[in-house]
């Protein structure tokens, strides 16, 4: 019996996560991108998020992906990089949106725009897996799952309940 050597069929990617870019210490004079991933009902959550930032006196700018099933088009990524300082990506409640939105978070981070991905609790593991596989120490905040069958009021309550957590995730004082 002789020893055999096989060849690795995988991408041989590194396992060590790259830390995300440090977010600003304060959101004063900063503009936050609210990136709607394009999933049904997500806009209702983002609507409320926009109101909450406005009430806090923080400027926002909205963006929307054409589909949650793909990573953001280069144009959107470039617009965000050009116009804002930090990004909140919402609201992933499925496998494809989680993976694609995590790539978007990573792509923006690498272009100097730190941020946070907002997902439903069910996709915590998927987010962690995707981060680990691309070697990225991304930030995330979770709402309850599921969200598709909730009323608009309930979606707004979800936004209310995680708003402080989101603000904390995009400011360095809480790092």
């Amino acid at each position, binding site marked *: 019996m002789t020893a055999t050597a*096989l*060849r*690795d069929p995988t*991408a041989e990617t590194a396992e060590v996560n790259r830390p995300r870019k440090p977010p600003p210490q304060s959101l004063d004079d900063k503009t936050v991108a609210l990136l709607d991933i394009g999933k049904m009902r997500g806009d209702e959550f983002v609507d409320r998020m926009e109101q909450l930032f406005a009430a806090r006196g923080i400027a926002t700018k909205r963006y929307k992906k054409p589909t949650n099933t793909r990573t953001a088009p280069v144009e959107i990524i470039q617009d965000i990089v050009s116009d804002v300082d930090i990004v909140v990506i919402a609201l992933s409640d499925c496998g494809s949106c989680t*993976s*694609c939105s995590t790539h978007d978070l990573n792509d923006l981070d690498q272009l100097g725009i730190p941020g946070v991905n907002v997902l439903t609790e069910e996709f915590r593991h998927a987010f962690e897996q995707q981060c680990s596989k*691309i070697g990225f120490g991304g930030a995330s905040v979770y709402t309850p799952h599921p969200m598709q069958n909730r009323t608009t009021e309930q979606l707004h309550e979800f936004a209310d309940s995680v708003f402080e957590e989101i603000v904390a995730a995009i400011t360095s004082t809480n790092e």
Partner: protein
Amino acid sequence: MNTLANPDSSTLLLFVKAECETCQLVVPAIEESMNAGNTIEILVQDDASFLNELGSISDLALEESFRWDVETTPTLIHVGADGELARVEGWDREGWQRLLNMPTLGSDLPEFQPGCGSKSREPGIHETLIAEYGEPGICSRKVELDKWDDEMESCFEHGWTDGLPVTPPTDARIVRMLQGTRRDSQEVIGKVPPNLAPVTVEKAAINAVMAGCKPEYFPVVLAALEAALEPVFTMHGLLCTTCFSSPVIVVNGPIAKQIGMNWGMNVLGQGNRANATIGRALQLIIRNVGGGIPGELDRSTLGGPGKFTFCFAEDEYSDPEWEPLSVSRGFERGQNTVTLFQGDGIQGFIDQRSRTPEELTKSLAMSLLAVGHVKLAEFTNAMLVISPEHHSIYKDAGWNRKKITDALHAAMRRPGSELIEGAQGVGEGVVASRESETINKFWPEGLLIVRAGGQAGLYSAICAGWTGGRFRDQSQPVTREIKL
């Protein structure tokens, strides 16, 4: 057993096989030459006892045959201090006389007799020798196994399989697979989701080996991979989705017959190596290179058997008038193509009573309306695999692909009032604002028809499409030419 020392200046090497008639023929010439004082190192490829009386040595491992790039037996090589000076292949009396400087050598033998193929050049053996003694040119990380490790089990332990055993990817097998393409092994084909990791031809070959492909299938695997990586195929979302779907591969063109694919009986089932392993190779690439592992980034709620493999050929033979899927999608008849569709497993369609094309159309439409949900519309695409017996009802009435497709779409238009959310007491449905519209079930280009299956049986199959298809311009099936 003797072994060959490093040849010093002016050595004569002779490679022979016991089973080669020409090698047997030249024995008197060898004896004559040795009697005249020449020292010839005789290397035997197949039977270590052959020509022992002349001091032959074994090359059963074929290492020397490989290193000297022997293509024929017998091959006589004159080696000088700086390497090879001359060689003669087969029995060529004048050539042997010149090389051995013996003008009357073998005068009783015929002037010429061709030799046999060298054992080191036999298919399967040559790639093993490249892996063992040559430069296989494989760049992927080596995974060394202990001599007691079971190769198959190691593949499971490394997490490289879809749950079924895979063929262990050894260098010899990878070299053999790479001979199925002319493309450079280090060419990057694209980035495989969900990790968007670059995939080279070599990585694809490793996974094709594991899937069980033969080298002649490899161009189909590469075309399928390229189709899957076209942005509009939405492989990223398709892999990570909570839905059931995965790539369904339809092969058109003469290659289907040339590599022995199935388009007939049990076409969507098991039992055909090409069908089974081409689809599986794509899935393994997505798993191993892309990182699409169930429970991690493959978040399918239920999955489906198509996620192991789902690949078949269209029947382009039993009805030469039928327009193949690839032709309906803009390619020439006779061009080899793959069409990738984002689909689920099959929903059987049974109709043993329809006699006219109108009846069958209505009947098919009723079943097609159930794709995804009866009340959903323009939400997924669909593939209809129509069997020869069902198709003959259309054919006998003179209906071609276009007429069938148009009639099916027409039979699936419904009033929005029946479909809106809440209508018929069911929450699922289309948005309320479409209440007064007449609504199509599928996008006009969203119903793909493939003719395949056994000649007997009034059964067809509906393969529901993925929900990503609701973004009409963002997620579409893809057809791509197979480049040989």
